[in-house]
């Protein structure tokens, strides 16, 4: 946890362990861009980091308005880091709206850097300020630095003779330059990037570079900002690293899975926030045997995915909660026809359209139960952006091994949050073994592998294996339509047993912390970072608290029931009203309690810590 007090009494080149910076401005102000650049530089400097963008649902709400504010937070450290930071230690606010929206997150004594030129009457009004906060003393509890960024930037670029509007657009780089100076970071890689990016319009490239440097030199030369900080390199595991977000990691994870299985990757999808980036990413990889299909809707995407699975592809679809709702009938068909498909749900705030750009974990019930009839699917959930890669391979492995749909529950936080990722070596990745029958003798499309209960995956094109499947109940073995009541019971049980049997082929659940103790903190999916940080902190404070994070939710790891008995209390923390909680209580009959938050935001470490403390009372 980064605590503002750590930078309270800073002097020149004070050394810090970690810092969280938030860049906030208008959607058009380029905050995501400079945030990203700062992150890259941070990565090069060898820090561990975690980032999280927070952008508005509107493409570009009216300039200067509250809904138009776009933010980007980066938390970086010389030690392991798990979250983008509860609250910023440094806030850069490019206009009054950005200040207003973000101020409530800002702890006392935090550094507040404001573009004072944007605080004119028009903008103040748009943000709903009655008086100018820069002048009314309301910012006194922060280390507050008003900087005339607009004017300084204009002056710095004056000699370049750019149109005023173009020049003004560079002010984000001025701000970035200032922050670079403040954290003693090199500008080279950003300069290179600027020159490359705008190579076709040299004027713009030079202007952005000039703005960046002007910001840096402003920090260096003026006495306004007294402090400069250094965050030393982190002790990361050796290896080649890249920055990766959850959506990127998922996308390339599925490409890798297909390659590891020697399969074509099919991705059928309909754009939806926050899942669209997976479609965007995959649509590039035409030279990697990836075929993407932007369907007319989610139902078509799911249908096409089933069709591709029937044809022998590693077949994937991706969407968010409302899209899963639409797919649910067809997912039932995939369960009945026992075809290997993976459904990615990048969860967002619900119900209904809800909060499309916000994060939530409230689609677990939908994944488990959101279909007609007894209709079990395998469910996995990656815990960190980087893990999105590995769980993509896991999801694919399970789908192919068990001839079953697999639901892959990511969320808006994982999707957009980024962290350094140590690239795996190709040879360390597990091959996925897939077999297709070719012998016509005694071929039965619903015969079963005794170990996994999977049925054979006979592909169209194979002579002699012509067969027909569908959504009506099937006779075990032959796969013929069957209205027989005993067969129905048998098949319902078989489908359930097949999914339950997955437990034998997944790693057991493991706790971080004491194997027995007062409290077990249980979580799943994208909350890993906060729970991990909070439970470590709790142990540091001497509490007997362990953390169990589930990546496999259906079925549960087989040792889960036993693990739960090792702790006096169980606290299940979720960004929903208690969904995993209910499943655990029902299955293991343990009096687990929930710590739940449904605010469209990740857990803060402090609030989890508080919940742990309360649970221990």
């Amino acid at each position: 946890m980064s605590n503002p007090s750590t930078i309270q009494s800073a002097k020149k080149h004070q050394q810090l362990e970690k810092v969280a910076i938030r860049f906030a401005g208008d959607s058009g102000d380029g905050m995501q861009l400079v945030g990203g650049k700062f992150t890259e530089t941070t990565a090069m400097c060898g820090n561990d980091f975690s980032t999280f963008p927070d952008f508005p649902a509107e493409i570009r709400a009216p300039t200067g308005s509250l809904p138009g504010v776009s933010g980007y937070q980066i938390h970086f450290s010389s030690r392991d880091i798990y979250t983008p930071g509860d609250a910023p230690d440094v806030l850069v606010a490019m206009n009054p709206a950005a200040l207003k929206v973000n101020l409530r997150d800002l702890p006392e004594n935090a550094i507040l850097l404001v573009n004072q030129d944007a605080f004119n009457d028009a903008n103040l009004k748009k943000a709903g300020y009655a008086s100018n906060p820069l002048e009314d003393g309301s910012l006194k509890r922060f280390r507050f630095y008003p900087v005339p960024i607009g004017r300084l930037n204009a002056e710095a670029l004056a000699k370049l003779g750019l149109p005023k509007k173009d020049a003004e657009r560079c002010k984000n780089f001025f701000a970035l330059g200032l922050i670079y100076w403040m954290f003693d970071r090199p500008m080279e890689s950003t300069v290179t990037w600027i020159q490359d990016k705008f190579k076709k319009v040299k004027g713009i490239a030079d202007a952005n570079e000039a703005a960046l440097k002007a910001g840096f030199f402003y920090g260096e030369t003026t006495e306004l900002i007294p402090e400069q900080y250094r965050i030393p390199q982190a002790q990361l595991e050796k290896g080649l690293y890249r920055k990766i977000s959850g959506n990127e990691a998922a996308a390339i994870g599925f490409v890798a899975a297909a390659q590891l299985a020697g399969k074509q990757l099919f991705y059928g999808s309909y754009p939806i926030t926050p899942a669209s980036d997976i479609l965007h990413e995959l649509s590039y990889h035409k030279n990697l045997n990836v075929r993407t299909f932007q369907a007319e809707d989610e139902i078509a995407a799911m249908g096409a995915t089933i069709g591709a699975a029937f044809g022998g592809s590693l077949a994937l679809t991706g969407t968010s909660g409302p899209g899963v709702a639409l797919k649910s009938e067809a997912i039932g068909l995939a369960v009945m026809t026992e075809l290997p498909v993976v459904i990615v749900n990048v969860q967002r705030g619900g119900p209904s359209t809800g909060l499309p750009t916000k994060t939530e974990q409230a689609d677990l019930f939908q994944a488990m139960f959101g279909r007609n009839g007894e209709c079990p699917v395998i469910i996995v959930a990656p815990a960190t952006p980087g893990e999105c890669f590995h769980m993509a391979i896991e999801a694919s492995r399970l789908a192919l091994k068990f001839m079953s749909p697999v639901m892959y529950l990511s969320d808006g936080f994982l999707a957009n949050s980024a962290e350094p990722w140590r690239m795996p070596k190709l040879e360390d990745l597990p091959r996925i073994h897939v077999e297709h029958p070719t012998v016509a003798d005694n071929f039965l499309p619903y015969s079963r592998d005794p170990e996994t209960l999977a049925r054979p995956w006979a592909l169209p094109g194979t002579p002699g294996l012509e067969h027909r499947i569908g959504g009506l109940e099937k006779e075990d073995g032959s796969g013929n339509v069957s209205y027989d009541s005993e067969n129905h019971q048998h098949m319902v049980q078989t489908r359930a047993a097949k999914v339950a049997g997955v437990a034998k082929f997944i790693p057991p659940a493991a706790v971080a912390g004491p194997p027995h103790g007062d409290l077990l903190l249980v979580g799943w999916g994208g909350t890993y970072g906060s729970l991990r940080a909070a439970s470590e902190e709790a142990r540091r404070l001497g509490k007997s608290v362990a953390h169990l994070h589930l990546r496999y939710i259906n079925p549960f790891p087989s040792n889960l029931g036993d693990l739960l008995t090792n702790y006096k209390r169980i606290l299940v923390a979720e960004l929903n009203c208690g969904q995993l909680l209910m499943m655990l209580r029902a299955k293991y009959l343990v009096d687990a309690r929930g710590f739940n938050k449904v605010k469209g935001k990740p857990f803060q470490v402090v609030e989890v810590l508080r919940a742990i403390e309360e649970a221990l009372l």
Partner: protein
Amino acid sequence: MNESTTLTLQPPALTKPVSKADFVSGQDVRWCPGCGDYAILAAVQKALADMQVQRQNTVFISGIGCSSRFPYYMNTYGFHSIHGRAPTLATGLKIARPELSIWVVTGDGDGLSIGGNHLIHTIRRNVDIKILLFNNQIYGLTKGQYSPTSEQGKKTKSTPFGTIDYPISPLCVALGVEGSFVARTTDTDLKHMAMVLERAAHHKGTAFVEIYQNCVIFNDGAFKGITEKSVRPDHALFLEHGKPMTFGKDGSKGIRLDGVHPNIVEATGKSEGLCVHDEKAPEPTLAYMLSRMRNPDYPVPFGVFRAIERPTYDGMLVAQEQQATAKMGAGNLQNLLRGPETWEVK
């Protein structure tokens, strides 16, 4: 660009010839006695045998409805999917496996009611699949509610006082989204059906075929006034490319255009001035006009309304993939993992 369909229609020399019986799956056929679906099934099985299609490369995909039980009776690969969604499965399968020959069987409810959107998007993309829509102007399987093609005023289980919906014409819909192959035939004319099915099979792109199909239980005789032998000459117009449009006994009547409006004229002997059918017209306006002709004002046209060549979705997909690969080189997983920027921790 996409020669796959042709390939599957030409068996390699070594394969032994297939017969109609080879396409019979052996599962008990469960339609009502007398249902028009039987005739269509027989016609499809025969047409595939006549074309020496390879069973293992052929897939029939259907939705839900009486008609949608079709795949069970075909000894090919088959998928009886869910209501209205067959074109989506077919599209996914075709994208994954462009070399397969894929047929969709659907009904007027399955294809035009719940499945209307998938139908039009599949047709507009020109995915190389063959769609057979069995139009019996009723929901058969659910026991007799009206469908989007039921005539206005029809009394059905769900409309005891008569429907108020205007019916939809499957062919107009297909032409509204530029179907590259659009045809109509009927379960009562095996020869015509065979002709249309073969034409559809050979078309590269989405082939959309409406088949008039009699439901003996819930809508018996719906097409009697058009297709029955005795009335057919006066009520049906058989289209032939490049031929003037004539009908009636001995071709005694013809269609002449007044602007874009078709008029019925006497035509005995002479065909000058009659509208000449052009299934290859680049613009579908003529086909659209024909698709709107209906009893009692006009004879109902049968045959191929439109058959033009244009690149298929799957063909373009593969071509784009090849071009991209040629340009960027074969992909490399390690490079993919590496991403745009890396740094090393030592």
